[in-house]
């Protein structure tokens, strides 16, 4: 970045100090966000690589590319890497870390050193997991179901369990930091009703991280003990109940879906008002629906277990509660749509991702209704229908939101503009590739193709070929942004402080922000999303 030929660069968090130490020992939330960005991107591509191998294997019905055991490890590690090392930290640890203090007008998170510790825990977990991959990997599926994981698998279950246990603490510390920061560090005048909805979404996410993750941690610990010492807690031959594992596992792992999707919803709620130049329709409804999702999300876990052998009556309780959690999600979709009404809408890259998010999330949410319906769940659970459904939520939803957010705040993060034309192209490719990959899987699922199958009956081939074709397109769509983001760090246009004329405190400081975020402490006297008071930006031109 030494090519500051135009003007002498102002001091900011990026150029204040140089050298590896200044990064590895930093307590600046913005630098930690970038450390996270680099590390989760690394894991994203590892997980993506596994995904492509899975899709390639499924191109033909016979298992002819890799061995069965290898395939089992591929989907297990794809799931674990993507969930625990990419999706859960993705938006909170990168965008959340970067933006929570900026958006509320704080100098940093409440506990900067704990923030750094959380990154080191993540890296430790990541290294343990990488070691596990190198030493042969793990083949339990991401779900670690007992007694397979405790008594039958011959792979590195203990190591994977420990890695995820550590990653869990990283996630807890992030959540803890956010809750305290949001409560204690808001700038004068930044009342709860003036908070950006991104903050509300992260607040809700943090609640789940705080109260859900420890249950996963203890469950995995028990699995590790059980595997090492044959205690019998989850082993039916010793009087244990394998369903107890599933209860404890899903108590975290269902709400974990909301850890992934809520921040993404927060991102979309920032993007839409900005590119429609409007206040959010129904601010309090959107804010409270985030909290409602966090709370109701904990009441529905056993809908993953409708055919697992739970009692008929509890299945009914969990089914009806599952519909309850659908309501706040629906409220959000309706409010986003209503926000567009009578707006002044521009089709910039972040907005394209936001549109994509709403579309794919709606599809994912609506197919969730199928899975919550007991009678249908029996047929489609553990088939590709489920695979398609959760990819619509977690990839279609969470990753679209993540990419949209990365584009939206990239000027703030890097001080450079990304190339708009490429951005729109990539958004389009991701959207098309995604649908081609995962829509056929709904059909496959209803036809009855079980998930985690290395080989399959030949009548499912055409749909699988479509899906594999889509996945290659999707891969291109994911590589593109990485390439042009890296490119823009050197060659992109210098970003103004507020390129979108967006509301929000983060846009009132320089791009990139100084180390302590604001030259002087901001005092908030306006409501969130006061787009009526902000001029419209020039329509972004496609030339750079």
């Amino acid at each position, binding site marked *: 970045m030494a090519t500051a030929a135009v003007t002498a660069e102002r001091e900011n968090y990026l150029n204040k100090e140089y050298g590896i130490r200044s990064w590895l020992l930093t307590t600046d939330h913005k630098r930690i966000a970038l450390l996270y960005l680099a590390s989760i991107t690394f894991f994203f591509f590892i997980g993506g690589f596994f995904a492509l191998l899975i899709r390639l294997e499924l191109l033909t019905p016979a298992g002819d590319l890799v061995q069965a055991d290898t395939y089992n490890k591929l989907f297990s590690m794809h799931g674990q890497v993507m969930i625990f090392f990419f999706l859960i930290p993705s938006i909170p640890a990168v965008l959340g870390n970067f933006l929570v203090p900026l958006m509320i007008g*704080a*100098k*940093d*998170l*409440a*506990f*900067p050193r*704990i923030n750094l510790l959380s990154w080191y825990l993540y890296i430790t977990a990541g290294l343990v997991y990488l070691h596990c991959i190198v030493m042969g990997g793990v083949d339990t599926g991401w779900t670690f179901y007992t007694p397979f994981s405790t008594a039958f698998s011959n792979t590195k279950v203990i190591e994977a369990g420990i890695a995820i246990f550590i990653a869990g603490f990283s996630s*807890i510390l992030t959540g*803890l*930091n956010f*809750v*305290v*920061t949001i*409560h*204690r*560090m*808001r*700038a*004068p*005048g*930044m*009342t*709860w009703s003036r908070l950006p909805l991104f903050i509300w979404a992260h607040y809700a996410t943090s609640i789940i991280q*705080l*109260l*859900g*993750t*420890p*249950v996963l*941690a*203890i*469950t995995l*610990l*028990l699995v590790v*003990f059980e595997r090492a*010492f*044959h*205690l*019998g*807690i989850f082993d039916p*031959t*010793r*009087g*244990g*109940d394998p369903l*107890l594992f599933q*209860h*404890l596992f899903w*108590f975290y792992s269902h709400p974990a879906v909301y850890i992934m999707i809520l921040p993404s919803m927060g991102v979309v709620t920032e993007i839409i008002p900005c590119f429609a130049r409007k206040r959010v329709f129904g601010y309090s409804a959107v804010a409270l629906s985030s909290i409602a999702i966090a709370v109701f999300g904990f009441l529905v876990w056993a809908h993953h277990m409708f055919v697992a052998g739970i009692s008929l009556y509890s299945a009914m309780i969990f089914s009806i509660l599952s519909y309850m959690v659908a309501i706040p999600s629906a409220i959000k979709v309706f409010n986003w749509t209503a926000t567009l009404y009578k707006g002044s809408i521009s089709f910039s890259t972040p907005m394209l991702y936001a549109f994509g998010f709403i579309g794919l999330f709606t599809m994912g949410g609506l197919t969730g209704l199928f899975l919550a319906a007991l009678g249908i769940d029996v047929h489609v659970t553990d088939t590709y229908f489920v695979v398609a459904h959760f990819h619509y939520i977690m990839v279609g939803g969470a990753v679209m939101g993540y990419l949209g957010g990365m584009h939206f705040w990239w000027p703030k993060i890097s001080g450079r503009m990304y190339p708009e034309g490429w951005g729109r192209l990539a958004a389009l490719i991701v959207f098309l590739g995604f649908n081609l990959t995962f829509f056929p899987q709904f059909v496959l699922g209803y036809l009855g193709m079980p998930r985690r199958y290395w080989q399959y009956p030949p009548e499912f081939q055409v749909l699988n070929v479509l899906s594999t074709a889509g996945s290659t397109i999707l891969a291109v769509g994911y590589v593109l942004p990485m390439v042009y983001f890296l490119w823009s760090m050197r060659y992109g246009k210098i970003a103004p402080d507020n390129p979108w004329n967006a509301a929000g405190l983060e846009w009132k400081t320089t791009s990139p922000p100084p180390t*302590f975020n604001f030259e002087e*402490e901001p*005092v908030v006297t306006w409501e969130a999303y006061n787009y009526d008071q902000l001029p419209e930006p020039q329509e972004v031109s496609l030339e750079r």
Partner: protein
Amino acid sequence: MSDSPIAVEQHEHRPELRHHFATVEQQRDSATLGMWLFLGTEIMFFGGMFCAYLIYRIWYYNEFAAGSRSLDIYLGTTNTIVLICSSLTVALSVRAAQLGKRGLVIILLILTLIFGLAFLGIKGVEWYDKYKEHHIPGSSFDAGDLVREYPQLHIDQSHEQIYFSLYFAMTGLHALHMIIGVGIFVYLLYHTWKGLYTPAYNTPIEIGGLYWHFVDIIWIYLFPLLYLIDRKPLR
């Protein structure tokens, strides 16, 4: 949610105030809230085991009763009392720190450490007894003595092993928390020794104390859940 946003223009310069906080109060409130949230997390961490405990206690009540009878209630009660005493010294040390009585703080912290180590020592004795009785789950587990001792409970050995698995998981993780607590208090003692805490700034002692009390509370529940399941005379 009554907490008010931070006050403006209050720039005191105090050594313990970290740069990103505006006031010492803000810093202290943040730390306290952080510790409380962490304790909330801890409740759920133990909660997973409480859930397993609850289910298996209902399923295998007799085995749980026999396992509970095999524990030494005198050592268990003594340990409970030791922990309660340590909680008292912790509470008093926080008070002494607020009053700025450094010498008293040091004495109380040392007492706390002694109680904490005594607890761990007694716990170690109990575990060693269990080791001698082959009650440690795993390949050498043998509850034959309980089967013979309580024929009227018709004990199934593998179910008995579940009780002891939970016993060791729960007391083990509790002891781990105690060890961490001892570490924290050694750190606090060292800083008190160096005179870092004043009546105006003693947050570390306060939140360290919160942690210690929490570990005490967990034990207050573990004691009846593990030791007192069923001690009444057998029919």
